């Protein structure tokens, strides 16, 4: 057991860092220490968490400036006398203390045309090889912690881009559907025009912060960029769309961009 200094953001978008001295035991993670603060010093400290096992993606915060899950950040990664500073995710509005309003993400999820099987098929018809599902399976490991969207400079530093950019999480969702062996929609045009794939300049910050170790940039975003380029610049595809033999681009879902209250 040792005593450590924690600096924790208190308040909403307006607020400040409050310093606490708090007991830390062997094997603990940052979330344990936040819970001890709640139990012993400040019961109203707002922290969002659920599973405490790295499976639900609720407890995303920034620890000493690095976006992380607080339940998977062990105290042993810090030096003995290091002050631990915990702040809310910077890209989203703060509700209170360490809890953000992440509704941006749920709005973006609704814009993506859903899985679209061939209407001639029925449940039980699919035959898919393991090797073919593995590409999308990697992206479906996503626990929706939104750390990738939080770290992405396109929206972290540019509020004005939020309207036109879905962030790595949802561009990866587009890639997941495009790579699903039984999906029949074509989201390549809207990936570029509506979801802002072109804003991504492959700095790989999203991949770096992903607690699931998903290779978002290499396996989802870059292949998606290639598919978009193929569709736009391949002369045969161009000819096909001119004479009407190419399947139509799937449009963005109507009436979801500004959902009503």
């Amino acid at each position, binding site marked *: 057991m040792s005593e450590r200094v924690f600096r924790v953001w208190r308040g909403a978008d307006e607020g400040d860092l409050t310093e606490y001295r708090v007991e830390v035991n062997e094997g603990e993670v940052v979330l344990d220490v936040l819970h001890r603060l*709640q139990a012993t010093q400040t019961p109203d400290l707002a922290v969002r968490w659920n599973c405490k*096992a790295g499976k639900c*993606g609720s407890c995303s915060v920034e620890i000493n400036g690095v976006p992380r899950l607080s339940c998977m950040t062990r105290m042993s990664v810090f030096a003995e006398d290091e002050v631990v500073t915990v702040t809310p995710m910077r890209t989203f509005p703060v509700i209170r203390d360490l809890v953000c309003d992440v509704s941006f993400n*749920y709005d973006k*999820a609704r814009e993506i045309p859903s899985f679209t099987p061939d209407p001639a098929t029925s449940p039980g018809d*699919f035959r898919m*090889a393991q090797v073919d599902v593995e590409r999308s399976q990697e992206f479906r490991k996503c626990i929706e912690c939104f750390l990738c969207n939080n770290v992405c400079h396109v929206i972290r530093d540019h509020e004005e881009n939020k309207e036109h950019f879905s962030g790595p999480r949802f561009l990866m969702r587009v890639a997941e559907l495009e790579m699903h062996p039984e999906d029949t929609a074509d989201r390549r045009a809207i990936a570029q025009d509506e979801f802002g794939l072109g804003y991504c300049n492959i700095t790989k910050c999203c991949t770096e912060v992903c607690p699931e170790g998903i290779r978002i940039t290499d396996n989802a975003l870059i292949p998606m960029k290639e598919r978009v380029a193929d569709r736009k610049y391949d002369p045969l595809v161009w000819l096909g769309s001119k004479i009407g033999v190419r399947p139509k681009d799937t449009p963005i879902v109507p009436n979801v961009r500004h*959902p009503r209250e």
Partner: protein
Amino acid sequence: MAPSRAPDFTRHTYDVVVIGAGGAGLRAAIAAREQGMRTAVISKSLFGKAHTVMAEGGAAAALGNANPADEWRVHFRDTVRGGKFLNDPRMAELHAREAPERILELEYWGALFDRTADGRISQRNFGGHEYPRLAHVGDRTGLEMIRTLQQRIVALQQADAAELGDPDARLRVFPETAITELLVHEGAVTGAFGYRREDGGFVVFEAPAVVLATGGIGKMFRTTSNSWEYTGDGHALALRAGASLINMEFVQFHPTGMVWPPSVRGILVTESVRGDGGVLRNADGKRFMFDYVPDVFRAQYAETEAEADGWYDDPAHHRRPPELLPRDEVARAINSEVKAGRGSPHGGVFLDVSTRLPAEEIRRRLPSMHHQFKELADVDITAEAMEVGPTCHYVMGGVRVDAETAATDVPGLFAAGEVAGGMHGSNRLGGNSLSDLLVFGRRAGLGAAEYTAGTGGRRIPYEAVEPKAREAAEHALASLKQGTGENPYTLHSDLQDTMNDLVGIIRRGPELTEALERLSRLEERSTGLSAPGDRVYNPGWHLAMSLPNMLVVSRAIAAAALEREESRGGHTRNDFPEMSARWRRLNLEVRVDGPGGVTVGRRPVPDIPPELLALFDPDELAKYLTKEELPETAADADEEERA
């Protein structure tokens, strides 16, 4: 924002309100919406974060992809065996029959399960299941399931956006909203009252039908695999609304939770580790499970390591390894080894897969476990054994429901998933929870839709609902004061110690009596709680509001456990160690009786229909049933044996 003494409510009117957004709740909401009902889903957490996400191993469904001999009757038989013949037979039957269809439906909504060589859904072995039966995605099946249901809801919202111009027109999710009281008028449900975590605002939902899908109760115990959400809300709401709970004495302690370091104690280690070849050893390096095969399972389990090891590749000619006994057996065995001084350094036993599979295979099949131990315990499970011990995981008990419609005793109130009782009898098999959520989630949604349709649009006027809502609001605000009352975290901690120490895996009459006394004192203290701060996202206040739920459900568990004088499944009495055929015929039924008090009644367990009873060997039936219940041939055989 200062706490307000004159609370304002946001009012919503729906056809069906679903409380809980895990697997059962989402599946119920999908079913209700598909029937044309305007449906609300209320979630304590963000959308897609519910406890279902933590399910690891898989969903049991007799698809017959891995072994064509599998079919629903075999699944039914395994389920009833696992539940020690206390299951509601109709629920177990419907579950076994419908699970395959529900899994294929998920696949059609976009779920990507692991595949067999011929491109079908792969199935894995699990405790108590005769054949490989669990559809899975590595060891993150729950995540796949909740994400698929979440995305199905989004797909339905998109259809409504296209048709009606508003994605929330017929199906709306209310994230981070907690229900504290059901609204009941003249004995029937009229809606629900709750608060938004985001701003502390109060919400009234008016609806003729409410589906409870609130999950379990694990947060009453110190060592648990459950998340903060598992505070028994639905169990308590149902009790206070006049419904009854059955089988509350049966609490499942999963045999393998992490034990070290202390901060992760209780976190689940999936049964897939054993399904895929992992074995349990004590401090002497002995595979001790061979010593713990009970008589009722003797015929199905191997007696030597060689026989057990042969089973993985040639199940037709070998009996199963005893590590794959139902969870209650394995949990008790680990408990006994540790008590006998043969445990691991941190009070568990060793679970080893490192000497059983190549490292690459372990990383492929058990990626989450590999990650979890590496990150949280500095243990590389491809190179060394894990330390594991029992952890409170699941409650078999729950609201008594009608098998077909999930309707409770209270008109308009339905329940599905972990909050419902009966399906799993005295012990749930691994993998049967995820399939339970789908099968009975859907049935509850259909049942609620049918009920609402049957009301013909008649609504209870708001004036009739409002007084109860105001009362609920006053109650909710009671603990929100800067006074000198008790810290809710302290009370919660004391409750966890009480339940863990006195109502845990092994129980004794006098300790249960003491637990009930301690609960009375905790209930008294719960009236003087104080949560400083305002109404905006205040966790101390939220905990204070959920403590009364935890206390009444704890009492239900302890009272039923004291009443049942036998040992069966998730209920082990040191003072009554035998299983009794007489007790097998009885469900204990808990109701509330005044504030905080409960009564325990008895009701007969429904009989297993003869055609399903015929699936069991007469010798096996003789171990469970009373002589009068046995089919004639079995009774005669029993008679001869005795003579």
